[in-house]
């Protein structure tokens, strides 16, 4: 694991560096690289590349500049979009959702909390990174981009796409999300072999089909949603289900 610490206060930097090294040793986490600094450029120079086994502890306020840490986090994200970013800050500076949205920050460690809670929170973050397997690259993402919008969702979570009342608008349902975007349903189906058009207005993720009722021409997805199937798509679905059964 590579650990990076950005903190301008010398005493605090020494303290958190010592804490992290002690916690790592106690939990058999091997540290390959440890960088603790007060300079953003020094920190950025130390990053070798993108790696899920990298964790950054950033002070939010650096040298009196409020939210300077956010700028550093953005620069880190440009070099490493897989690593984990944690802000170490005082309560009043915290804006969890904003930072999660902007730099995908994982956590916020409050400097004002008790020493015990502080240590515990550092450890939780270290363990989180330790358990990150290098699987990120292996996940198949559904990716869509147009002028105003990018949609990126793990393909496995996709249930179905349907056209909306509004022309050219598509609504995507996943196991826990609903996303609207402007696109062409047919083009989407063409780009993903595991999507199948079952009606003019609806395409399902074939891996999510749990049952097919032949007599009523109805198809059920893993979340229980039922869809009528267009007559001319029946042959295709039956072939596919037979194929999957084998």
């Amino acid at each position, binding site marked *: 694991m590579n650990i990076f610490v950005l903190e301008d206060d010398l005493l605090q930097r020494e303290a958190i560096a010592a804490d992290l090294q002690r916690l790592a040793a106690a939990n058999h986490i091997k540290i390959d690289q440890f960088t603790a600094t007060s300079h953003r450029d020094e920190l950025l120079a130390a990053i070798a590349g993108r790696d899920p086994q990298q964790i950054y502890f950033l002070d939010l306020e650096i040298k009196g500049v409020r939210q300077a840490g956010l700028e550093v986090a953005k620069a880190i994200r440009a070099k490493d979009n897989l690593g984990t970013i944690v802000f170490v800050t005082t309560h009043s500076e915290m804006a969890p*959702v*904003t930072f999660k*949205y902007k730099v995908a920050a994982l956590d916020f460690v409050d400097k004002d909390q008790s020493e015990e809670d502080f240590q515990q929170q550092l450890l939780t973050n270290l363990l989180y990174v330790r358990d990150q397997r290098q699987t990120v690259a292996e996940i198949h993402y559904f990716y869509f981009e147009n002028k*105003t919008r990018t949609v990126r969702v793990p393909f496995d979570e996709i249930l179905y796409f349907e056209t*909306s009342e509004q022309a050219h608008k598509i609504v995507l349902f996943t196991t*826990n999300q*609903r*996303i*609207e975007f402007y696109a062409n349903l047919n083009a989407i189906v063409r780009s993903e072999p595991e999507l199948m058009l079952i009606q003019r207005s609806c395409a399902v993720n074939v891996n999510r089909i749990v049952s097919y009722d032949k007599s009523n021409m109805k198809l059920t997805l893993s979340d229980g*949603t039922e869809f009528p199937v267009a007559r001319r798509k029946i042959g295709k679905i039956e072939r596919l289900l037979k194929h999957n059964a084998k």
Partner: protein
Amino acid sequence: MGDVKMFILVTIVLTFLYWTLFYQINKQRFDVLAYIVSMIIFGVADYFWGAYIPVLFLVFFFGYCRIKEGKGYLRLSYFYSIYIVYIGFMLSNLISLIFYELFSGAFIDKYMTVLQIISTVAPVFIHYLVARALKINFTLLRRSDPFIKEKILKPLNYLLTFFVLVFFSSYYYELTLDTSAPITEYTKYIMFVYAFMFGTVLFFISNRTRAYLQLEIQRAERLQIKQLNQYTTEIEHMYQTLRSFRHDYQNMLISLQDSIDSEDLDLVKQTYQEVLVKAKVKINHHAANVNELANVQDHALKSVLYWKLTEARDSGVKTDIEIREDIPSQLALSTLDLVRVLSILLDNAIEAAKKTANPELRYVILCDQANVVIIVQNNSTEEHISLNKIFKSGYSTKDGHHGLGLTNVVEITDRNPAVNWETSFNNHQFTQKLVIGER
């Protein structure tokens, strides 16, 4: 054979007329299936009961709207069906009467087909042009506002029913006369009445929808002033608290000074703890983060955010606000739409959070490049929320009320292509996210 072709052509054109008018006022996705079905029904009906086809159209479209629009849209469905039948039928009648006025009988006989088709297609263009000239926004009528229902649709339906009765009775009266040669004076009179009725209906709609928009603005302004007053009061109150806190703090520092002077380390420690603890309690207690609202430039938006914050706090929902950047007031979404969307999302979030043991609400506005991102998050008792269900019109879960008003949000985001909307549910957290693009 020629007659059959002719007959089919007229049926297709006639059906096209009604569907196009329907589309002009309804702005819904074109339904091919319904189009074909209606064509067959009308073809058959036209063949057997030619003259009574307008009544059939009325029944068909009413039935169609009832199925499509669902519960609670009785008036709207009735309006759609009677309006298109009335406008379509009356305008084509008016145009044929004009033809009879302008051309000789021989000319009309010779070009019967062409004239018939022109008189069927022309209403689409006439209606479109007149509606445009009067700047009528038919989609406003879809809103479920009492003013629209009671003050627009209701009188409009009465008016239309009356006109349709007048029109049909004169039309069928003419049919019973069975005179192929029209009486000039009578026709002129009828033409005038038709044109007058057409004008009245459209003028009424145009006038009333404008009045509705005016009313919307007035309502919003009144509400906004009320909210701003409350906001000012709260800020003043905060300032007072801050002052009294500063006063306390000074006193505590003085006592700290005293204990330091006494050189009793335990006393110093105790006083320090007291100061610190008390300060923290006060600050955190007042971290009801009203001050975050200062970053919102738009007063209407600020007032609705403040109003919902108060509502949440009053009903015991712990509310966190994160607005760290200046939020521009010029957005791709009109203030009115933005306020409507946010009130709905926040209401839903508060309602759902209230059902939990520790109700929590968080709303966040941030700028990301040229976009403004709004996030509304609440905790929920539900294990699993079926997102496709709550977006169905009229649906709301038993415990929370996430389905409430979502169809209105759908309507607004549909109208505004620069708005991207995402909903998600994870670990008992329900999140609504709107990304609003550049204007």
